[in-house]
């Protein structure tokens, strides 16, 4: 099993949710995060003084899947989350050794 962690633009969340659900991956966990990468932040003002906000709003989407599904999910993410402009985000795939569905006690791949 794998955990796919995608950091995307907040305004792309709706598209990503839809695309994943259509591809058969409705389950996910979503977190508001802030980040920086190539994209270097924006300027904001307070009482006319400018300051740099160097951590931008992003959304982290985590999807627990079985090993065979990784390629498909990455494809969906790349397609749905991309704008082609700087700041589109990253995806990391990490191994999951065990999974558990709390309600039923199911473990392993059935738990996903």
């Amino acid at each position, binding site marked *: 099993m794998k955990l796919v962690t995608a950091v995307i633009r*907040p*305004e792309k969340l709706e598209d990503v949710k839809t695309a994943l659900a259509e591809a058969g991956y409705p389950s996910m966990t979503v977190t508001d995060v*802030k980040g920086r990468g190539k994209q270097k*932040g*924006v300027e*904001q003002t307070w009482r006319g003084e400018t300051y*740099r906000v160097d*951590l931008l709003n992003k959304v982290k989407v985590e999807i627990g899947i079985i090993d065979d599904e990784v390629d498909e999910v990455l494809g969906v993410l790349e397609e749905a989350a991309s704008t082609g402009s700087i700041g589109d985000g990253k995806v990391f795939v990490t191994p999951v050794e065990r999974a558990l569905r709390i309600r039923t006690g199911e473990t392993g791949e059935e738990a996903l």
Partner: protein
Amino acid sequence: MVDAAVLTEGINAVWVLTVTFLIFFMQAGFAMLEAGNVRAKNAGNVLMKNMMDWSMGVLVYFFVGLGIAGIAAGLTAPGGYSVAESFSYVNDPGAWIGWLFGAVFAMTAATIVSGAVAEQLKFRAYLFYSVGITAFIYPAIQGFAWGGGLLSGSGYLGAAFGTGYLDFAGATVVHMLGGVAGLVGAYMVGPRKGRYTSAGKSIPIPGHSVPLVVLGTLMLAFGWYGFNVGTQATVLAVEAGALVFKGEALGRVAINTTLGMGAGAVGTTAYTWIKDKPDPVLTANGLLAGLVAVTGAVPHVTVWGGISLGLIAGIQVPLVYRFVVDKMKVDDVCGVFAVHGSAGAIGTLLIPVFAVSGFSAAQLGMQAAGILVITVWTVVTTYAVFKVAEVTVGLRVSDAEETEGLDKGEHGVSAYPEFGTEARGGEGL
């Protein structure tokens, strides 16, 4: 010696100034109500619009607005007009309390519009329209209805019906005008992104704070006592040489304002509860709609009338709002048409039905005619002014700016720099 005329002038001035301050406070009420109704990313923009329609508006109304009202009245009634006389208040300190009392009504009409077009209208287009409504669109109607013009008993239309248009404190002159202007504006700027699916189904876009919505609503209700009861500007009068206390008239406007407001909230709550669950935002809207509906009627109708108008206004809020959104496909962000527009029209039209003085068909005709005139005038002029804005500065912010929020795009700020969906930096997360 105590001269009765001087005395009444003094007492009435204390009263008028006091209520004028209350009416001014409605600016704060609208600002909070509208801020609560939009997403956090657009809250700063809508607050800015509210501060500026007042601030620019008073200058415009001083240099242009009130004079235009006089001219508009003179043009539409026998007797004609004089530009010099229409603008004489500018240099007459004795006229300035009256000017201010007029100005707070004008700014109320103006500020209603911002609620309909929040979240996508460009700031400069809003300012442009704001000048238009305070310089011209509202003053003309003010002159027609209250300045002895077209709709008054002596105006061309009023004379034709043999009776003047009844709208005591501006249910239509102020509120319906603002509500219709908002509707036209919302139609022209188009719905917010995501407000309708591609199939045309409406998806609500919740505002960010119910407490701000209710705060704004109750601040408005407070100011409204100034608006309605204050328009009964004569506390004491000199009649046949004797001092007369206008207590009954004041009592009637005060009680109809109160019971109309209560019935508005009760009407909305009852209706929505029967359909589904009672909803705080709708109830707040219903409370205001009740106030709007009786605003024109308070001195003219019985208490049963005041209650009935409030109830009707409350019940129609959810119905009209959904009609605007679902059938007309107009994205009226704060629901200003249902609250100020249709509620004002209904309340004013029905005055003769609930009149203390009994029903009069001529009056009903005049009411319908007046509402028509104000509606047509507002639609046409608002359309024209926004059209000019569209071809010059443009109406709508870019897609990217709308997504990001107008606070960032138009003002470079964040309304809540530490919270929620906002990025922080500089001095730490």
